[in-house]
């Protein structure tokens, strides 16, 4: 078999110009202190599926990398007030394999399942997906539709915020310097609730959403929709919560005319880019189609519980 490989003696001196320090704090306080002391040249490392690539390509050149995966709050999944709290650095695969959470929020789990490959999901976290702030991030519309909130710590203490307030544009967030998204809270589900996330991509796997749509709704005992949230991805500079689309569902039986109105409202809210992956016109049209299909799936799921 293999012999013990020890290369401790092979250190070369002074060959790299920029040293990048790696720290893996065990507590949130220590992480906040490290980030506060780094004068902005620090980056957070969770799953690393975006940060490692950005570092390697030279797009970012941090002096300090703070790995948050050793902090218990960042890695836990637990029931809370009838809902679920999960750490922002939990890998996609750990979320997918959490049976109770997956049963309660199948749409959120579907969105996580669409991120990258199995290899990528074993590392990529939902917190990273949010904070990387790609307008096409798959988990973000699903979480916004779900009404998820994030808990944040920073140099000024703790706060929490709805997920939709975090991304502000491509690669940009509303987080202040040194703030860390610690965890997500998925609220308690009323009976007859269902959620769904669907996206359009040219390929079935390993692709980036041209349009994504998350829908979360709750029916009353008579099958009337009482609550709904509709959120679109990849059709604006950030995930777009569309209250007009939700309003078209609320009070209806989620029947064909309501779905038509909802799809039209979804399309009307889009302000997409025009690129080789999808023209403006195409994205606007498909946003309505995806929102309709997601609402139909959410409806089926709501009727099943």
């Amino acid at each position, binding site marked *: 078999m293999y012999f013990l490989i020890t290369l401790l003696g092979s250190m070369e001196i002074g060959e790299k110009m920029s040293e990048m320090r790696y720290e893996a704090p065990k507590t949130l306080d220590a992480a906040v202190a490290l980030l506060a002391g780094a004068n902005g040249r620090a980056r957070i490392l969770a799953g690393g599926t975006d940060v490692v690539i950005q570092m*390697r390509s030279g797009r970012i050149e941090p002096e300090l990398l703070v790995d948050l995966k050793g902090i218990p709050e960042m890695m836990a999944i637990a029931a809370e007030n009838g809902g679920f709290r999960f750490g922002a650095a939990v890998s996609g695969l750990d979320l997918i394999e959490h049976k109770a959470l997956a049963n309660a929020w199948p749409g959120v789990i579907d969105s996580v399942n669409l991120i990258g*490959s199995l290899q990528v999901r074993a590392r990529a976290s939902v917190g990273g997906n949010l904070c990387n702030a790609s307008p096409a991030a798959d988990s973000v519309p699903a979480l916004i539709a779900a009404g998820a909130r994030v808990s944040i710590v920073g140099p000024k203490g703790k706060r929490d915020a709805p997920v939709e307030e975090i991304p502000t544009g491509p690669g940009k967030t509303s987080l202040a310097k040194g703030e860390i998204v610690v965890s997500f809270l998925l609220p308690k589900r009323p009976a007859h609730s269902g959620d769904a996330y669907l996206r359009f991509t040219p390929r079935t796997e390993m692709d980036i959403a041209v349009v994504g749509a998350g829908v979360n709704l709750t029916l009353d005992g008579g099958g009337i929709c009482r609550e709904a949230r509709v959120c679109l991805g990849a059709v604006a500079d950030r995930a777009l919560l569309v209250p007009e689309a939700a309003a078209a569902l609320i009070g209806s039986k989620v029947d064909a005319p309501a779905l038509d109105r909802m799809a039209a409202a979804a399309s009307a809210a889009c302000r997409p880019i025009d690129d080789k992956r999808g023209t403006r016109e195409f994205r606007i049209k498909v946003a309505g189609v995806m929102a309709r299909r997601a609402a139909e799936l959410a409806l089926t799921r709501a009727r099943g519980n």
Partner: protein
Amino acid sequence: MAKNRVSATVNGDAVEFLCETQQTLLDVLRDELRLTGTKEGCGTGDCGACSVTVDGRLMCSCLMLGVEAQGKSIKTIEGMANGEALHPLQRKFLEHAALQCGVCTPGMLIAARSLLERNPDPTEQEVRYGLAGNLCRCTGYHKIVEAVLDAAREMRGA
């Protein structure tokens, strides 16, 4: 100064290495530990040529830093055969001619082994989804899928 000192287990053996923060696990495996079976295709998490398992989970070693391997158990293609005896997947890849240039092959084998550990009796579709993170520019995938299905049959004793 400031290299990170890391202790980990690779293919069952304790290893220690020094690495710079920006070195990926792939860099460490290939350049520091001289385990060059694991390949770099893209370096951006898209091709799966660098697939290894870390604490039993399939990952892209190009997306993980060497320093993150501290305390972890890593398995690479070098640990797949048992001495001279090839793993059934390796044998079936040869029998079915499931490789041409061979750059994707170590990653395919590691991913296929991980798939069969979770699902010993996969359908063709499950094999294709299970290997969706592994790209091959040569074979057209058909022979790879056949080799995996055949190896699964043999490993189940069917």
